């Protein structure tokens, strides 16, 4: 069987003389490229794998409980927080933040350009972990509720997790033990304790931090 190798001869990895290249920009957008890659799957299948798969599919399919909801878990300072995935639009790398004179402060940092849109940029650390030192933010999360959109600067994002509603226990009664006044409950994941944020309270607080 002859292998397809056009991307190496006339494509981007060759002399770039392919007539289709100007329209496609890169070979990976070309069906020929995909076809070349799929030659990999023409390899014979090991018997052991067949057995494995058979074993896997013979089992009952895992069905999620009905009352699960999805959250994005992220870290601010030393605390982990979760917000429902529904209120997330996008997650990006850290972008430059332009300060707004007389407005920028500890919470409201300024305006950031996210994919061509100018959005209000918020450092949630003073709100979520009052008294902790300045956070070393590496990610930006675009959140939206109703008509208000905010970019939250966080240090780490664990990812999207589906949480059974029963796993969430109420937040401790005393404020001191609570990660934040904005948490409605806490749950554990991978031995970490995560505070589930109340979206209504959070967005109200953020709006309040921007209003003069």
């Amino acid at each position, binding site marked *: 069987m002859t292998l397809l190798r056009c991307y190496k001869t006339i494509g981007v990895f060759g002399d770039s003389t392919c007539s289709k290249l100007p329209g496609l920009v890169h070979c990976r957008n070309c069906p020929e490229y995909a076809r070349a890659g799929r030659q990999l*799957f*023409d*390899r014979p299948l090991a018997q052991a794998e067949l057995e494995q*798969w*058979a074993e896997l*599919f*013979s089992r*009952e399919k895992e069905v999620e409980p009905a009352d699960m909801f999805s959250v994005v878990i992220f870290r601010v300072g030393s605390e982990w927080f979760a917000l429902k995935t529904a209120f997330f639009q996008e997650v990006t790398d850290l972008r430059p933040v332009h300060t707004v004179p007389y407005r920028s402060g500890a919470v409201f940092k300024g305006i950031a350009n996210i994919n061509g849109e100018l959005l209000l940029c918020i450092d949630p650390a003073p709100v979520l972990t009052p008294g902790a030192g300045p956070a070393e933010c590496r990610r930006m999360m675009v959140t939206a509720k109703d008509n208000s959109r905010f970019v939250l600067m966080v240090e780490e994002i664990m990812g999207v997790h589906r949480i059974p509603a029963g796993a969430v226990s109420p937040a401790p009664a005393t404020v001191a033990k609570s990660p934040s006044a904005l948490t409605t409950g806490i749950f554990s994941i991978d031995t970490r304790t995560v505070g589930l944020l109340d979206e209504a309270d959070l967005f109200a607080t953020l709006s309040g931090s921007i209003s003069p």
Partner: protein
Amino acid sequence: MLLVVFQIAHDRFGLDAAQVVEVVPLVALKQAHGAPGYTAGLFNYRGSVVPVIDLTALITGTPCPRLLSTRIMLVTYTDAAGAQHVLGLLAERVLETVTCSPQDFQSPGIASPEAPYMGDMLVDGDQMLRRITVQELLPPSVQELLFAACGEAS
């Protein structure tokens, strides 16, 4: 509509995604004794026994090569009695899907009575593919045999 594309010999074929339950890798199959030669075997799919038809064997007469791209498409099949079953279809190069509109199909112009499951043709870029009508795949005798066997196995 979406078609799940596969290959038999050197020809491409498509299957209506609406009928597909799931695509699974090739698994070790149990021998279906007494079944026609194009029956690849029986598959324990999440507790229920599913018969698997080797489409390559059905169309070309030679069994499908055991490759990484050789997969089983699980489809819903309504038998003559109107009962719904899950049927496995074995083919190679089950690697892509094609989105198209029902109007894009063209009749090949050649009727093939011995292969009623062969549907219309679709031109997909510089390639062509032929639609397979799942419902026409199995003659009633085979249906009985297979689903009865499945019933026995389960």
